[in-house]
């Protein structure tokens, strides 16, 4: 593994090796990005095994379209978008994206800044997993990936207003969950 890491010291060398179909580069690519990309897939799909399948499919897409990468922007950002699209495609094919418009309004205000140092990534992943698929998808795209509402609407085939309402409801639910966790932790 050390030897493989020494072969590809920067992103450009890795891309060139992947463009040549180098098996070592492909293995290095898996070793370097699989954990991070699996986390992305889990955020969208809420299922570890299915997320692994989507991650592998996304990696195959990366290898197939590696020649389309012209060096504009970061390679990881380009790859991240491919993996995200693969996850969204899986959600679309399984009709997992159901926009819940009847979610309850939460009026409780939570001071997130005061509790964030006590929450770990695993805790936040559990909170995201509890969100409905539509909420979670829009929140992931907007809050974490940095998509605009227009882009989300284009990707999911919904209106921008629907995307905004879904994001708002997702935030409210997450705040509620954070307050509950904060209360439990304070009790402990």
């Amino acid at each position, binding site marked *: 593994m050390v030897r493989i890491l020494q072969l590809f010291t920067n992103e450009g060398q890795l891309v060139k090796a992947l463009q040549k179909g180098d098996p070592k580069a492909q293995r290095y690519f898996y070793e370097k990005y699989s954990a*991070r990309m699996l*986390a992305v897939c889990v955020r969208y799909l809420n299922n570890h095994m299915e997320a*692994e399948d989507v991650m592998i499919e996304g990696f*195959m897409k990366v290898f197939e379209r590696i020649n389309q990468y012209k060096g504009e922007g970061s390679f990881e950002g380009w790859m991240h978008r491919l993996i995200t699209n693969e996850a969204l495609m899986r959600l679309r094919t399984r009709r997992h994206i159901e926009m819940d418009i009847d979610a309850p309004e939460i009026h409780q205000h939570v001071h997130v800044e005061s509790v964030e140092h006590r929450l770990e*990534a695993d805790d936040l992943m559990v909170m*995201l997993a509890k969100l409905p698929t539509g909420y979670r998808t829009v929140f992931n795209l*907007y809050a974490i990936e940095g998509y605009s509402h227009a882009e989300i609407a284009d990707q999911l085939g919904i209106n921008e207003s629907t995307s905004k309402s879904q994001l708002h409801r997702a935030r409210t639910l997450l*705040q509620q969950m954070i307050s509950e966790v904060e209360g439990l932790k304070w009790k402990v």
Partner: protein
Amino acid sequence: MKKHPVDELFSRKLRDAEITPRDEAFQKFQQRLKAKERRIGWWQKGLWLAAAGVSLLLIVEGGWWLSQQPNEINTLALSNRSSTNGIAPSSHQTSEQKVADATNELTSLENNAQVGVGSRTKSEATTSSSATTPSKHHVKLKDAIQPLVQETQIAQVEVTTTASEPQIKIEEPTKTVVLTNAATAKPTEKTVVLQLPELEKTLVVVNESQTTVAATNSSMTDNDVLNKPRKSTRMAKVWQQLKNAKNGEKVDWDEVGFNPNKLVTKAIGK
């Protein structure tokens, strides 16, 4: 634009989050890579591989074509050989023997025709029927003192036999020459081909001489007459009879063509 605190919290904590995949995921990844390599045909792996395949195919075809060329020549040669060998060995041998016999006979004919009377002993020594040369013919005429009618009959018979036999013998060598030329070009066969026209000429000469002899019904006994040219034979005969009359010897007026005694008797009778 300031981000929402919830968005900020989740973005900062989860953007670089990592979840280690299971070992099964890596095995599945390897299987997918192998399946992809299998799906990708050799023509998709690169133009170099495709070009190498095409060039290898061309080389193989070229080699096969080149290997076929000598085989075709060999097969042609073998077919020729087989065609020649397809003839029964006995017939082939007989044809060769015929060629040899024909060449011997033709050479003997040619020699006899060229030598003429000088090779009388040689022509008499030959046992083949082709030895019927003018010299032999004249020898027979000289030895046998017979009536003119019978002699002419003998001459005609001999002429017919000599005219018929060489024709047969000429046909046989031509056939054998064609066969031998098709089979193998040997120098001996070339000599046979060169001899054929000369033989025909000699045969024609023999026939002419024999026919002239038969037509004149002459009874030439002197060897000098034979040595003279054929066109002056009648004049030679007349000259010989005049010489005989001058020397007081018996004169054969039939040889001259007219008898003065008969002319005198006819004149007296009138």
